[in-house]
């Protein structure tokens, strides 16, 4: 436990000190939220909810922020590899699992905070709070997304030598995961083939869970969302731990 906390603490220190990164990674979600939210608010009606489009979009953008930050945090261990710091950690008499879990929790915390900042921004631009309990539900889903995708990032980083593959991962995994997740559109009205793709995307369950928490309604049963996302998170931790154990330095 001490070891996990030690590694978590280092992630936090680095995060808090990288002001430009904090601001920088808020840019895209805020851009999406403002542009799509206000651009489409008047023309889009979400069937079955009273929420306007901005209200519908906020959970998706929160999930987006958590997703991008967590994958990026996981992939950061490539820098530790290149800058040599990973050696210092790996030669200590601690287990690889502890190191991996510490990194994961660090990344998930970072991602959660980034999601929270988007949430605060949405409150400022007029999102109304449905219930305090709902907020806690949304937090839970945000943390799960954070853990799952930081682990995913670590799994990827364990197999990569340098950052060259990063663009590939972003374009062919992360953007599709985000695009197909129902963050931007309701899944009920999709054509069947697209709907099945959406339901195969683990982020869908995260977005729907957050949406249930924040707006009180969702198209998927929140318990189903919770179950699927938890299973996915456990699988990702397993994959991350497995691949990280095999890292060669």
């Amino acid at each position: 436990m001490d070891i996990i906390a030690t590694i978590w603490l280092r992630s936090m220190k680095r995060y808090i000190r990288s002001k430009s990164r904090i601001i920088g990674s808020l840019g895209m979600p805020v851009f999406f939220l403002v542009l799509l939210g206000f651009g489409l608010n008047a023309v889009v009606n979400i069937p079955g909810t009273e929420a306007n489009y901005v209200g519908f979009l906020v959970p998706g953008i929160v999930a987006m922020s958590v997703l991008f930050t967590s994958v990026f945090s996981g992939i950061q261990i490539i820098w530790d590899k290149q800058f040599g710091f990973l050696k210092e950690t790996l030669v200590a008499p601690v287990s690889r699992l502890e190191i991996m879990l510490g990194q994961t929790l660090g990344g998930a915390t970072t991602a959660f905070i980034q999601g929270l900042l988007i949430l605060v921004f949405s409150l400022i631009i007029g999102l109304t709070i449905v219930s305090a309990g709902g907020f806690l539900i949304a937090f839970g889903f945000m943390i799960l997304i954070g853990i799952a995708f930081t682990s995913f990032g670590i799994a990827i980083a364990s197999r990569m030598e340098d950052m060259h593959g990063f663009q590939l991962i972003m374009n062919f995994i992360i953007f599709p995961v985000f695009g197909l997740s129902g963050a931007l559109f309701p899944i009920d009205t999709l054509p069947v083939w697209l709907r099945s793709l959406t339901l195969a995307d683990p982020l869908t369950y995260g977005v729907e869970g957050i949406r249930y928490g924040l707006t009180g309604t969702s198209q998927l049963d929140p318990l189903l969302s919770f179950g699927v996302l938890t299973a996915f998170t456990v699988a990702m931790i397993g994959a991350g731990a497995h691949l990280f154990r095999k890292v060669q330095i």
Partner: protein
Amino acid sequence: MVAIRVSQLTKQFNGLVAVDNISFDIQEGEIFGLLGPNGAGKTTILSMLATILESTAGEAVVNGISIAANPDAVRKSIGIVFQDQSLDEELTAFENMDFHGRLYRIPKAVRRERISTLLELVGLADRKDDFVKTFSGGMRRRLEIARGLLHEPKVLFLDEPTLGLDPQTRNHLWEYIERLNKEKRITIILTTHYMDEADKLCGRVAIIDKGKIIAMDTPQNLKNQIGGDVVTITSTKIAALADAISGSWIKTKEQHDGFLTIHLENAETHIATIVTAAEKQNIPIAAISIHKPTLESVFLHFTGRTIREEDASNKDHMRMRARLWRGK
């Protein structure tokens, strides 16, 4: 007491034999050097002993613990300073030390106390709250050495401890390493491709080439092995001088144009004899000089090549690129 026993250790990287069936013992309290050119296998040997790389064959015992059977216990008992920097530049000197202390589960009070003692020792006490990214190469190296000592290892591995440092900083580090060895009785095994470093610092040296140990002894014995010293005497009367100097300590005398060379052991103890003999015969001596063999000549003798000294490794270039990539 044996601190490290290496028997028939071998490492292959897909067919390339980086370390080839080497065996040696290091006694407690020694400063032992692995000397060899780039790619000789020095780092690979250290990595296996530090249990961060698995050996292909062979065995090694560090502090009485087998590296294969109990790597965790080995790690606890050793400290290592890697060839390439392994500090977190975004943390301060203190935070780097503290992170290390926590990983080795040193209780907080002890940790704090040792960190201040060690930072004092390496002369970084007044910089403890500065970010490592503001440190010079020498300061980083000293911090890494301090960090390697935090958990009080019995054996310290230093991989190219003074690579790329200026002479003054190198001297400073050498003194410091010697002091650690004497005062704290820490066994030190270091790699280097600097001849003078191995010569000055190490009690014993193993010369490594292409994964094999080609010679191993004290620096003095290694140098004696290849034929001892050479005295060169410049004079106008070479032939007469050659006749005047005689004795069983002379291995060979060679007359050249304007100077005479004498091969012998322990040249400095015979200089007086040479000068006196020349004076008796009224032979003028214009100049006299002693050439001692260096480890460089030892390496040349055994391999037929000289050690090439290269400062920037490929890894450094890669880091530079990574740094540029991050826009720093």
